[in-house]
């Protein structure tokens, strides 16, 4: 009996990558720009999307996917604005993967989409490793979480193209040092755009929206 050696050189994440590639092909075919928004729970992702809609709606045909372990609360908040919203409940899984997004895409008329924003499950760890085929990753960090998070959870911040520092209006109450966050991001080799924001008050939302709109236009 002979022993045979088989060189595979296959990614361990191949299963997710196959689905991500399928999604990417669909996005390319239909000219859809996609954003993966990631953060810990409660940093303000849904509020940021809510406040961004008024800037995006006049320019793009948008769609939103929101991921949570349970409930449709986020989808309910975003509905009624003329934008299709699909809620994914992962029932325990701590991130959205490419296959889940692929399933959710069936609920959209892809011909009618230019910009798809995906609000990932609140978690600073796993979503960074499971791409669904997106164009941009955006991390949100809110000031009450503390300014050490970039160093503590470097993977997500290193991979993000933009970092929104939300709840900047609370900065004086929570001992948050924006310079330190900027320095930590630089030390990760990050070239991410940084957007200080107080989404609930609408502060800083326009700068982020203008930046994203320029990215969408450049891609088309």
């Amino acid at each position: 009996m002979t022993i045979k050696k088989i060189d595979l050189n296959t990614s361990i994440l191949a299963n997710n990558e196959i689905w991500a590639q399928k999604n990417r092909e669909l996005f390319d075919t239909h000219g859809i720009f996609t954003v993966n928004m990631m953060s810990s729970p409660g940093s303000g992702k849904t509020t940021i999307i809510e406040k961004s809609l008024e800037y995006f709606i006049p320019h793009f045909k948008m769609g939103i996917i929101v991921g949570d372990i349970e409930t449709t609360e986020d989808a309910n908040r975003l509905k009624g604005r003329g934008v299709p919203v699909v809620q994914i409940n992962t029932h325990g899984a701590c991130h959205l993967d490419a296959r889940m997004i692929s399933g959710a895409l069936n609920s959209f008329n892809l011909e009618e989409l230019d910009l798809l924003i995906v609000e990932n499950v609140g978690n600073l760890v796993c979503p960074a490793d499971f791409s669904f085929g997106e164009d941009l990753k955006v991390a949100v960090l809110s000031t009450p979480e503390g300014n050490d998070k970039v160093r503590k959870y470097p993977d997500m911040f290193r991979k993000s193209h933009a970092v929104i520092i939300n709840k900047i209006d609370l900065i004086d109450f929570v001992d948050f040092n924006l310079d330190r966050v900027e320095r930590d991001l630089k030390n990760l080799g990050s070239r991410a755009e940084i957007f200080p924001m107080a989404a609930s008050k609408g502060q800083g939302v326009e700068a982020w929206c203008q930046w994203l709109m320029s990215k969408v236009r450049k891609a088309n």
Partner: protein
Amino acid sequence: MHETALMYDVLRTLEASAKENNIEEITELKLVIGSLSSILPDALRFAFDAFKGSPPLAQDAVLKIEERKPQALCNSCGSCFTIENPWEFSCARCGGVDIRIQSGEELYIEYYKGRERSVDYKEN
């Protein structure tokens, strides 16, 4: 991270490949894991031991894991350096942060070894 689910996928990949290559028993498996990949080798080993017997294709296989430390190239001074801490990617020589990661993000099955199924030749 998700070592259990990933190891399950690894074994399914091996199962499919073994079938294609007429392998009846896997004797050795090698994975390459970069330390920036957020995958813990010990957790992979644990998952491998839990799953390897079902189906029994790899139940006696040896799992080898090569861990790779992240290496980067500094675009400012041209030096190659090892990233010692995953929150500190600046160049060890000049402190520059314009760097390119060259390794450390690997996450793949390099190879496996296995016994080929013996073929019975029937005499005509």
